[in-house]
């Protein structure tokens, strides 16, 4: 594959990307995608001289809307990496880019740490020392991690025991056609095991045996914080764990639309990992709603959903739209009787992964998300749905209302 940066050749300067960028709209600190991408790239060689590219949130909207196929967000990601290589990656970026390490350290002491994090002094100190904004929506650690729950469950239900994998499998059908591998990612692992539980429930309900292999962070936070080398390392770790299943032709489903985009495409386009093993794993990766929608089309989805009499505002995250498969959650949620799903037209919640955590970017992220927050409020002041974890946390923070993954609604409708 050619270096993604060469797509700059296709730019005709039409400004469509700039008119759609949620960040340059709210701050003069970022001159916009056309400037940072195809324009500045022609002048980038040798010492990195532009700093404004750091204010690109990486949401990827520009690349989606460019009618000529310029991979703007990807160009920006690479430029940021070059910049950080030169001026060093801030400690803050090193820390927030490792949700898996944080989770491993913090989960055993979750109640204490969660409590501490709620103390205003602690967050102020973090802001002063680490430049993590004191109000940024940090998730709470879960005392019981998802893999621990999954292991315990297998021990409690003898029929689920199957020694063929690291963390385990659930029983049911045994032919490969009916086995799926679940990539839960860090958020489900350490912060929101409830999403993983819902996914297992929906998959099992449809007759799948679910394998949950040992796995690490997908590497996206490292990548977007400019640490490509470390990101490649964790990708290699994951590829090694997932490869045996990909070789058997098993689908790998992920509940985080950002993790799945990372492993599907960004590893190649941004991290330049062009090896066959990575490509094979990518080829077997599905976002969970994408996967279920394919099953539906094949007549293989159990559609005996119970009614949920609710009106739910749904935000399709930028990363999910980046997949280019439409908005499968919308179609799936339509199958639930009495559930009225309202798609939000606002483009971005603002946080774009860890962008909104940063002291200097928090207010930009909040300004970007404002349109979405108020639209959610006026649609249903009780609940919203969204496929990506950091977006959900930002929405919860911005609206003060809970937010769920669509898979949770599907699971709830399988009563």
């Amino acid at each position, binding site marked *: 594959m050619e270096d993604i940066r060469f797509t700059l050749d296709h730019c005709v*300067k039409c400004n469509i990307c700039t008119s759609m960028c949620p960040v340059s709209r709210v701050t003069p600190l970022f001159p916009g995608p056309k400037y940072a991408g*195809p324009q500045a790239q022609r*002048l980038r060689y040798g010492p990195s001289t532009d700093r404004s590219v750091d204010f690109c949130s990486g949401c990827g909207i520009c690349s989606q809307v460019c009618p000529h196929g310029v991979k703007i967000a990807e160009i920006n990601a690479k430029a940021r990496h070059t910049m950080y290589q030169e001026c060093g990656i801030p400690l803050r970026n090193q820390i927030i880019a490792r949700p898996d390490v944080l989770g491993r350290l913090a989960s055993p002491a979750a109640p204490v740490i969660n409590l501490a994090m709620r103390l205003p002094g602690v967050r102020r100190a973090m802001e002063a020392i680490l430049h993590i904004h004191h109000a940024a929506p940090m998730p709470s650690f879960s005392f019981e991690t998802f893999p621990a729950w999954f292991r315990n469950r297998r021990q409690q239900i003898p029929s689920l025991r199957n020694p063929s994998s690291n963390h385990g499998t659930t029983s049911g059908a045994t032919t490969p056609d009916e086995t799926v591998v679940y990539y839960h990612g860090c958020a489900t692992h350490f912060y929101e095991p409830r999403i993983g539980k819902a996914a297992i429930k929906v998959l099992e309900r449809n007759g799948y045996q679910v394998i949950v292999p040992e796995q690490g962070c997908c590497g996206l936070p490292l990548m977007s914080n400019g640490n490509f080398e470390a990101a490649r390392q964790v990708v290699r770790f994951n590829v090694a764990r997932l490869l045996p299943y990909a070789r058997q032709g098993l689908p790998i489903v992920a509940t985080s639309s950002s993790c799945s985009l990372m492993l599907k495409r960004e590893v190649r386009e941004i991290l330049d990992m062009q090896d066959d093993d990575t490509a094979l794993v990518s080829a077997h990766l599905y976002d969970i709603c994408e996967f279920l929608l394919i099953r539906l089309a094949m007549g293989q989805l159990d559609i005996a959903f119970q009614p949920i009499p609710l009106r739910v505002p749904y935000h399709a995250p930028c990363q999910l739209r980046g997949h280019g498969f439409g908005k499968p959650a919308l179609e799936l949620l339509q199958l639930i009787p009495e559930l009225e799903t309202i798609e939000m037209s606002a483009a971005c919640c603002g946080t774009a992964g860890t962008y909104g955590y940063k002291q200097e970017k928090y207010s930009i992220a909040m300004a970007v998300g404002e349109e979405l927050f108020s639209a959610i409020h006026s649609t249903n002041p009780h609940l919203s749905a969204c496929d990506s974890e950091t977006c959900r946390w930002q929405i919860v923070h911005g609206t003060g209302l809970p937010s769920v993954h669509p898979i949770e609604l599907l699971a709830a409708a399988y009563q």
Partner: protein
Amino acid sequence: MQQFETEILVIGGGSTGCGVARDAAMRGFHTLLIDKGDLSYGTTGRYHGLLHSGGRYVIKDSQSARECIAENRILRRISPDAIEDTSGFFVVTPADDPAYSDKFYRGCLDCGIPVAEITLREMLQREPRLNPAISRAFEVPDGAIDSFKAVSALVRSARQHGAEVWLYYRLVNLHLSQGSLQGATVENLRSGEKIYISCDFVINAAGAWCGQVAAMAKCPVTIAMGKGTMIAMNHRLVNTVINRCKLPDDGDILVPIRTVSVIGTTDYRVPDPDHYPIERWEIELLMKEGEHLVPGFKQSRALRAWAGVRPLYQTEPTLTDTRDITRSYVLLDHETRDGVRNFLTITSGKFTTYRLMAQVTVDKMCQKLKIERPCTTHLEALPDSEDHHYYHVSHRLGEFEAAAQDDALICECEFVTATKLETAIHRLRTTNLDDLRRSLRLAMGPCQGGFCIFRAAARTHESLGFDVSRTNQALVQFLEERWKGVHPILWGDQLKQARLDDWIYQNVFNVSALPQDEGSPSSAERANQSLAEWMPVEIS
């Protein structure tokens, strides 16, 4: 008629003439330089951009090679602000005779050109887009030199030493009396006014036009004109100068210069230095040769094509292949040759050797005037080069970012800010957008003026207060000139761009109907004519 007096009159504002003017001024001569156009209006503004190491000439023309490496070292000292230290590779592609490379290597050593064979791995690491089938690579100290920057610095330096520089003044006659030139008549092309210049000495540095100038002093000088066509690619496909390791031929060098990379050149005899259309076969040939260096070259976006003419002094009028004529410079003493005492012609040569050419010319003049004043041009750095820093492609980006972006970008592709543009408009006091282009790189990027040139035209209008029809005319003239360069490469991405630009100017601004001065044919008519000559080139 107005009169003007000077010691030395230099004809030609290319690298040679500007080099001569600076040298003469530094030696204390009162000097006047004129050009019928802007600085770099001739070949200097249409060349390839390569600061030669001399590697290209080691086999065929070792004298040129030695001159190049000596001058290369000097220019790096005195003019680094115009130079990008790209380094250069000579590579053996599967299409090249492998036996040449050993000869080349020995030739470099013989001529004193630092040369080192590098591993293919290193080559690909530094230039990942090069053809992996390349079998050998040698590194030499080539560079890229921006002629607009270099020449503008030469002129500023010449002025600091007391020289005068008149642009848009054409030499119309030289006055010869009893074996010496008494003076010259020049015409101010903006006002039509003629001026008589009395002078002690005339130096003809009129490049491809030097035969015409010499003829005014009744000195017959035959110049062969070798047209060379080049194509600028939209971005830097490579960041090192890449030469094919073979005897000099068409399309064998790729030069990264500023934001583009330029493939060139062809070399084809033309009769007239003012009219030399770009031929379709040239474009096809250059794109094909580029493919030997960078696989996928043909799919990359081409921005524009242009040509320049090499003035090559002919000693044997029968030679037809212009590449066999020496590239070393020619200094004609018209006293020994034609009996005119105070007249020298300096021509041929290369941009890289302009300083040496100027030095030998002014030395010769001193000798004839029996004045002893040594040359110092190699000792003093040019304006903006005093800090000995090379130019770097990312400079403008850094400058703009450092200015906290509170300036407006007029030309977004080449990062020309409103402040830069305003300063240039007031310095040059011109509505001529092409002059602004040369001085700023305005409109030299991917959209070729699509989004900036109407903004720039408006700024000239507001700043200088000339009437609307004059601004319109400047806009239309500029667009036509740019279209000429785009027509030959209309395919792929640039075709899409041209379409969008066309919509902007024809449909939004209705540019062909703008009120202009009487008598000029409508721009749409002219554009359509030239478009019909150019069907898109087949690129397979």
